């Protein structure tokens, strides 16, 4: 197995007496597709926020591509290749779909400070944006404002923005949440097409999706890792079943 692209060592976060992440040890290898599951309030989003730097850990460390990034800001982690999508759409709603992607491309290419437009450069970036949109079947929507898109397509724009940043590690926070089952097909296709050298960590409640793609599954409960293994191992794990179906509680 290749060296992990993303690792955490004893990552811990507590607010006063309340512990939301308990000494989490985790690693993710390039080219793998891992799922993070757990009941509501298990600390999945907290874990992602710790990984991306939105909240600082109480102790422990985050290693990205062999480098300790625990003290780095959100944006420098992004620049080093850790990119996330959001559970609730956090797109730039009044911009067009293409502009959403261009915004990310500009930042990725270090163009964000350019105070004057350059038509030639613009064309190149536009082409790149449409190339990404094409992969997600969004190219026909490029000129539409995001808020005009159906929700399912908006979720795809979310992924398009992430891909524009050329991630090494992609954290997907419930990419299929809020999408009618009839529309999940596109998401599935997109996930299938993701490059094989990318490491993907997906938080998802849709077990169809999880079991279809994940090579490994981590189950988080009350801020701690309850189980980690292949989908088969997890599906047959009694503790996990209990957590999900409420076994062990006597009525």
């Amino acid at each position: 197995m290749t060296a992990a692209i993303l690792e955490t060592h004893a990552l811990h976060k507590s607010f006063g007496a309340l512990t939301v992440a308990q000494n989490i040890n985790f690693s993710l290898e390039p080219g793998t597709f891992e799922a993070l599951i757990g009941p509501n309030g298990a600390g999945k989003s907290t874990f992602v926020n710790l990984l991306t730097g939105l909240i600082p850990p109480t102790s422990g460390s985050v290693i990205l591509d062999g480098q300790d990034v625990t003290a780095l800001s959100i944006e420098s982690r992004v620049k080093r290749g850790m990119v996330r999508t959001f559970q609730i759409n956090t797109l730039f709603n009044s911009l067009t779909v293409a502009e959403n992607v261009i915004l990310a491309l500009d930042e990725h290419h270090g163009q964000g400070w350019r105070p004057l437009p350059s038509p030639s450069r613009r064309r190149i970036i536009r082409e790149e944006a449409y190339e990404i949109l094409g992969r997600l079947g969004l190219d026909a929507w490029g000129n539409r404002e995001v808020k005009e898109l159906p929700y399912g397509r908006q979720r795809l724009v979310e992924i398009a923005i992430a891909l524009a940043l050329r991630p090494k590690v992609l954290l997907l926070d419930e990419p299929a949440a809020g999408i009618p089952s009839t529309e999940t097909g596109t998401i599935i296709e997109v996930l299938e097409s993701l490059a094989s050298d990318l490491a993907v960590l997906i938080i998802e409640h849709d077990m169809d999706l999880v079991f279809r793609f994940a090579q490994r599954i981590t189950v988080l409960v009350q801020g701690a890792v309850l189980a980690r293994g292949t989908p088969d191992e997890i599906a047959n794990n009694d503790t996990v079943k209990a957590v999900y179906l409420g076994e062990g509680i006597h009525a």
Partner: protein
Amino acid sequence: MPDDLSLHKIRAGYGATVVLEDLSFDLAAGSKLSIIGRNGVGKTTLLATIMGLTRLHAGRIGLGDLDVGALRPNRRAKAGFGFVPQQREIFPSLTVEENLLVGLRPGAWTLARVYDLFPRLRERRANMGNQLSGGEQQMLAFGRALLTNPRVLLLDEPFEGLAPVIVEQLFQALLRLRDEDQLSIIMVEQHAKLALAFAPRTMVMSRGRIAFDGDSGTLIDDPARLDALCGIGGGLH
């Protein structure tokens, strides 16, 4: 007995986003209903919609003869809905007792009765709302809703994030409520076992719709079906 609560072809969500699609069910006065389903299928949204906290795009929500669909949340509360939200939403700048009294309406439930049901609250009556443990907050949220003397009590994942011993304690209180009170109760719950044990009727939701609505016993007797509807193994089938 006449239907107390009736939802007819509900379409609702947040802003333009639709979460609930063409959802209908009735609930007879005094009856109890459990709603289960995986995360993110719209259970919480359903309760929020009944309370008037979401946007109702279409459909009718009736309480008895009253159409409450157009009413603001406070009118609905007065019409007879009591709400225990998932995050408890205790008012931090009110004391425990004030939290209980702030929504008080006359009826069978009194402060004394709530204190009898949850003696712990009596001990902590002078504490501020933000000084409570999770379990105490949950009791307080219960008590606060009961003191509005509702016809229909809406419980949103009342056991989430609580230690097993507290869950046990709360569940016993809930059973007392179920057996001794003429209140209609809808409980949204992730613990399927708890939910099935609580109400004779269970609804399973999936992606904003009702996937199952029937006798709780059916699901207790058919674990495979239960697993398929809301368990983790769903992905393997």
